[in-house]
C-alpha cells in the first residue's frame, strides 16, 4: 500500500476507534452509576467509623452531589484531555495508577499472546500437514482439552504441580521482593515469575489458534492456486510456506485481533490467581470498592488497548493482504 493510502487508512481507523471508545466510556459510566452503593459509603465502611458530616464531605469531594448528566459531561470532557480523574479509594490520579499497572499486564498478555500464537500456529500447521495421523489426533485432542478447561483451574493445577510439588517456579507475584537483584538477574527473575501466568493465560488461546490454523490450512490447501503451485513444480515445503501458510494466517490474524479483548478479560482471572500486579486485578478491586473513576479508567484503558490492537491487526492485515484496500 502506498504511504498516502496507508496514512488515510490509519487515520480513518483512528477516527472510528475514538468514537467507539467514547461510546464505551459513556456506556460504562451509565452502567456503573446504576449499581448500588457509592464510594462515600464504601470509604465510610472502610474507615471503621463515619458520621453524616463525613459522608457529606466525601460526596462533595468526589462531585457525587451534582446531577448525573453533569457528572458525565465533566467526566467525558476530562477524558478528552486524557484526565481520568482521581481514584476515590487510592486518592491518586487514575492515570498514574494505570501507568503503574499497565506494564505488568502488557507483559503478561503480551507474553501469553506471543506464546499462544507462535505455538498455536506451529501446532496447527503440524496437525494440518499430518492430517489424519496420530500427531494430528494428539494435537487436536490437546487443543480441545486446553479449550475446554477453565483458565483459573489450569492456573491452580499448574501452581499445584510446579510450585507446590516440584518447587521449580514461583507461584505468585512478579518479582522476588527484597532480593535486591540488578541487571540481567532482574530479567531472569521476572521471567521466572512470568512463566506460569503466561502459560495459563496462553494455553486457552493456543488451543484456539491451533484449531483455527489447522482448519484454515486445510481449507487453503484445497484451493486452486495451491494446485497451480504444484503444477508449477514448486516443492511441498515451499508450497506450505509461501502459499498455504501465508494465506491461511489471514483469518488467524483477524481472529487474534478480535480476541485481544478476551485476553485482557482472561488476565483478570490469571492476575487474581497469580497475584500479578496488573490492571486486570486493579479492575476487579476497583469494581468491588465502587471506585468509579478508577474502574472507568480501567475500562477506558482496556478499550483503548483493544481498539489499538484492532487497528494494528487491521494494518497488519492490510499489509499482508493486498485486497483489503479495495474491500474497505
Amino acid at each position, binding site marked *: 500500500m502506498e504511504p498516502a493510502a496507508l496514512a488515510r487508512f490509519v487515520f480513518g481507523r483512528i477516527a472510528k476507534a475514538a468514537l467507539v471508545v467514547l461510546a464505551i466510556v459513556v456506556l460504562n459510566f451509565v452502567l456503573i452509576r446504576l449499581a448500588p452503593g457509592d464510594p462515600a459509603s*464504601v470509604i465510610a465502611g472502610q474507615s471503621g467509623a463515619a458520621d453524616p458530616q463525613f459522608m457529606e464531605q466525601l460526596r462533595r469531594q468526589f462531585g457525587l452531589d451534582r446531577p448525573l448528566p453533569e457528572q458525565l459531561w465533566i467526566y467525558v470532557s476530562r477524558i478528552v484531555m486524557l484526565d481520568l480523574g482521581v481514584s476515590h479509594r487510592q486518592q491518586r490520579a487514575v492515570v498514574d495508577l494505570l501507568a503503574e*499497572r499497565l506494564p505488568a499486564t502488557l507483559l503478561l498478555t503480551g507474553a501469553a499472546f506471543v506464546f499462544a500464537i507462535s505455538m498455536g500456529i506451529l501446532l496447527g500447521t503440524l496437525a494440518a500437514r499430518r492430517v489424519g495421523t496420530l500427531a494430528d489426533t494428539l494435537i487436536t485432542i490437546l487443543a480441545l482439552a486446553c479449550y475446554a478447561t477453565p483458565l483459573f483451574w489450569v492456573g491452580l493445577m499448574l501452581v499445584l504441580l510446579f510450585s507446590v510439588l516440584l518447587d521449580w517456579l514461583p507461584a505468585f507475584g512478579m518479582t522476588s521482593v527484597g532480593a535486591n537483584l540488578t541487571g540481567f538477574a532482574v530479567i531472569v527473575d521476572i521471567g521466572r515469575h512470568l512463566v506460569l501466568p503466561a502459560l495459563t493465560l496462553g494455553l486457552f488461546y493456543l488451543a484456539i489458534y491451533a484449531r483455527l490454523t489447522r482448519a484454515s490450512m486445510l481449507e487453503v490447501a484445497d484451493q486452486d492456486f495451491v494446485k497451480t503451485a504444484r503444477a508449477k513444480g514448486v516443492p511441498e515445503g515451499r508450497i506450505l510456506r509461501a502459499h498455504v501458510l501465508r494465506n491461511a494466517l489471514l483469518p488467524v490474524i483477524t481472529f487474534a485481533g478480535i480476541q485481544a479483548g478476551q485476553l485482557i478479560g482472561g488476565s483478570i482471572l490469571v492476575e487474581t490467581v497469580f497475584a500479578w500486579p496488573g490492571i486486570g486485578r486493579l479492575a476487579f478491586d476497583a469494581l468491588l470498592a465502587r471506585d468509579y473513576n478508577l474502574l472507568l479508567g480501567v475500562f477506558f484503558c482496556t478499550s483503548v488497548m483493544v481498539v489499538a490492537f484492532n487497528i494494528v491487526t487491521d494494518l497488519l492485515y492490510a499489509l499482508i493482504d493486498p485486497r483489503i484496500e479495495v474491500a474497505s
Partner: protein
Amino acid sequence: MAPNRRSPAGLRRRDFLAAAGATLAAPAVLGPGDALGQGTPRRGGTLNMILNPEPPVLVLGVNNQGPTLAAASKIYEGLLRYDFQLRPQPALAKSWTVSPDGTLYTFNLQENVKWHDGRPFTADDVVFSIGKFHMELSPRSRAIFQRITEIAAPNPTTVTIKIREAFEPFLLMFDVTATGIVPKHVYDGTDFRNNPANATPIGTGPFKFNEWRRGNYIHLTRFADYWKPGQPYLDDIYYRIIPDSASRGLALQSGQVQLTQSNDIEPFDVPRFQQMPNLAVETKGWEYYGPLSWIEVNHRVQPLGDVRFRRALSMAIDRNFILNRLWFGVGKVATGAFSSATRFHDPNARIAGYNPREAAALLDAMGLRPDAQGVRARLKFLHLPYGEVWTRLGEYLRQAFAQIGVQLTMESVDAGAWARRLAEWDYELSINFVYQWGDPTLGVERTYVSSNIQRVTFTNTGGYSNPQVDALFERGRTAVRAEDRQTAFSELQRLLVAEVPQIWLMELAFPTIYDRRYKDVIVGGTGVQASFGDVYIG
C-alpha cells in the same frame, strides 16, 4: 463511635487487618527485654510480611484501614501504647498525669525526637495532630476529641489537654492507630487529604518510608536517627502485596515472607502452620480491638423484632461448630455483647447455649408453625463480602436455621452495596463484626443505644431501642471511677444477653504467624500494629 469494624475496604476479605496494631509498642522506653524477649537483640536483617489488600495511602488519618495501620504504625508513633491488659505505656509521651477530677491531662514528651526529614519533633506537632489533623479527618477521633476544651503546649516537651467532663476511657485514644502524631510543618495549612506529601509519609517512627511499587511491595528502611538508642534492630521491612489467599499461604510456607497477620491466612490453613516447627502462631495482640462478630438483626423486620424469635435463632446456632469447623479453633465463642478482652467484661453474663429443640419450642410458642415445606419463616440474608470464611459462615447459618424451620435466602453483594444497604437499613439479616477499642463506651455502646440509630454504617443500624439499656450505657460512660463503671456494665451485660439485640457469634482472633527466629514480635494489646522497633532476629 464507631470505630471500626473491619475494614471493609471495599475489598473482600481479609481486609480487616485493619486495626491491628502495635505490637511492640513503640519503641518507647521499654527495652525489648521488658516484654517477652529472652535473648540479646542483634542489629540487622530484613522482615518480609504481607499487606492485603494494598492500602491506598500510608498516612494515618487520611486512611485508617487495617493495611494502612499495619504499615504506618512503623512510620508514625502515638503518645502511648497499651499492654495486653490495655494499660497505657509510654511511647512519644515519656510520662503523663491526670488531674483528680479527671479533666486535665498532662503529657511529658520524649526529648531529641526527630522527624524522618530531620526536623525536630515538638509539642506543637502533638497539638496540631490532635487539635486539627485528626479532628478534621477522623470521625472516630472527632467524636471523642470534641470533649476537649483546650489543648496547649506550654513548652516544647509538654502538652496539656483539658476536657469538658471526666471521661475515664480517654487515655485509650493515644495509640498510634488511634491518634498517630503527624508533622505540623508538613500539613499545617494544607488540604490534608490531597497533600502531595501523602505519597512520602514522614513520621518519627523507627522505620522510614523508602519505596512503594504499587501492586507489588512497600519498602521501609531503618531510621538511623531514631530517638530510642540502639533501635530499631531490623534494617528493612518489606510489605508484599499478595491478593490471593492461596498464594499468601505459599509465601509463608516457602519462607518468602516471615510474618502474616490478620486475615492473611485463611482459617483452614492455620492448623497446617501450627504444625510447622519453624513457625509461631500467636493469637494475642487483638485485645485493644476486641473484634466481636454477630448476626446483624434488623429489628424493624418481623418477626425479628420479637425477642423470642431472636433467642430461638441464637439457640439454633452451634457456636462450637463455627469455632472449630470454620475458624479451626482460632478465636473464642462469644458470650455476650462484650468481648472478653474488653474492659469491664463480665464472665457471668452468658447467652443461652446450643439447643435447637428449645429453639423450635420457642417458635411454636410464638405461633410460628411450619408450613407444607416445613418452613416457619423466610428471611433474606445479606452475605458479608469480606472473604470466604464469611461466605461459609452464611452457608452454615442457612443450614442451622433450616433445622428450626427458618429459611434463609442468600443475597450476595459487593462491599459497597453491603455498606450502603446496612446504612440504609435495607436488610433483614446480615453478618457484622465490630472492634470494641478496649472499652464499652468506645466500641460497644454505638451498636445498642437508641441515640445512635442512624443511617450510617456501624451505628445502631438494627434499630434496637431500650431505655434501660440507654441509661446503663450512660451511667457507664459518665462514671469517673472504674469500679462504678463496672457495676453499670455488669448490669447492662446481664440485660443484653436476655434481650439478644444482636446474635453474637464469635470473638474473633486473628493469628499472627511468624518465623520463630524473629523475636519480640507481639508485645502488646495492639499486636502487629506497633512500631516493630524492638523486633530482632535471634
